């Protein structure tokens, strides 16, 4: 989920960069030196997961998993996503340097929102059904938030981008549904395999 280079207007690019830098600053402050290997490992896992293609009807899509990142990483999702996107830009040249800030916000803001809204529920969830529900909400909120931010970036760029914003939202509805199902399955798996990851207040950060 990213916007390519050359599309957004200068104020949107600059504003996105400044807000993303603030988010990354908060995220880095919540990390201490001992958390770095764990957070980096999670970043690498999410990067790897984003290379996995899953079929969705006639097409295949790749996973985003920013909702899950929010649940597991909290505010460190900001630096983690920044690094994943930088690597994508450098290795595959998806996105790019000037849109790095905006693209970070697109994924990281919903992740932090998931962290604030849903993490408390996840820690309280006692049954598999509840864990599944919280996981599905995290997946849906992660992508829906991302779609909203992409649309906002397009709309703020100018009237000429309204059509593109609409197209983006419509084409990403399947992604929304798949991520909901997928994140629910993932959270329930982790809840059974490594409950301390889900239950403790701050396993990763």
């Amino acid at each position, binding site marked *: 989920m990213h916007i390519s280079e050359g599309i957004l207007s200068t104020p949107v690019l600059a504003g996105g960069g400044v807000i993303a830098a603030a988010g990354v600053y908060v995220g880095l402050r919540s990390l201490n030196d001992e958390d770095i290997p764990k957070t980096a*490992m999670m970043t690498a896992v999410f990067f790897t997961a984003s290379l*996995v293609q899953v079929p969705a009807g006639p097409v295949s899509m790749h996973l985003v998993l920013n909702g899950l990142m929010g649940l597991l990483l909290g505010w460190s999702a900001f630096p983690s996503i920044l690094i994943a996107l930088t690597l994508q830009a450098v290795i595959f040249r998806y996105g790019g340097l000037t849109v790095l800030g905006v693209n970070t916000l697109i994924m990281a803001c919903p992740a932090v929102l998931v962290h604030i809204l849903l993490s408390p529920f996840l820690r309280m969830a006692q049954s598999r059904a509840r864990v599944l529900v919280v996981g599905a909400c995290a997946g849906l909120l992660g992508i829906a938030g991302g779609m909203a931010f992409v649309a906002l970036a397009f709309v703020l760029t100018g009237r000429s981008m309204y059509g593109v914003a609409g197209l983006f939202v419509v084409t990403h509805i399947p992604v929304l549904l798949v991520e909901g199902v997928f994140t629910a*399955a993932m959270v329930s798996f982790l809840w059974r395999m490594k409950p301390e990851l889900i239950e403790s207040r701050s396993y990763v950060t």
Partner: protein
Amino acid sequence: MTSLLLLKVDSVIGNIDPRARLVSGFLFSVLLAVAQKWEVIAAGFLSAFLFCAAARLPWSGLRVRLIGLNVFMLALLLVMPWSVPGSVLWNIGNWTYTIEGVELALMVAVKGNAIVLAMSVFISTIDTASLGHALEHLRAPRRLVHLFLFTVRYLDILHHESRRLFRAARARGFAPRTDLHTYRTVSRLIGTIMVRSLDRSERVLAAMKARGYCGRFYLLHHFSLRMSDALFIMTVSVFVAVLAWMEWG
């Protein structure tokens, strides 16, 4: 980090100081992203192309990326002109497809291609570990650089592990389809990678502590600017300055 790296070149550009390439790539991209005039964007595209040719980048790696980008740009060309007011090319009821819109979409496409070319030649030729070191030398936050270097360190390992697990699943007869079974299976595979790698990160931290880790990475790569680097920086600066003068001068 060998299997994931697409552009590994042994050419002139590979010998330039990574800091110089990083800064040049950044300046070039920012200027093109901000530019509004056709002549600036066209000149930027041309010079980015010339830089790619001069660095003798492998065309195959570049082509894959440019095709991906331009499929998106084609979609933009189909959609964008409907929401730009101007002289009408076609119309369906109240909806109009305008010449101004086509021009704007083409401008975005040329800009996007130019920036991707510039990125490819200046930044994608830096290997990821040197990129981390260059960032630290350019005074990026210390923890961010450490996070970056650790991520790079484990990326290839995890990528291989992921391919191994998926190959094993296919060997047991798993065929991805659009159903709950597929999503559940894939989520378990990724979950397994996650659980294993968290355990691994604990072992890594313990091993690092045993060797006296105190939150610092000692940089072993120290870059020093040479004559060729200075020449490179001057060439790129002249290009960027001329483009900036064309835009605002």
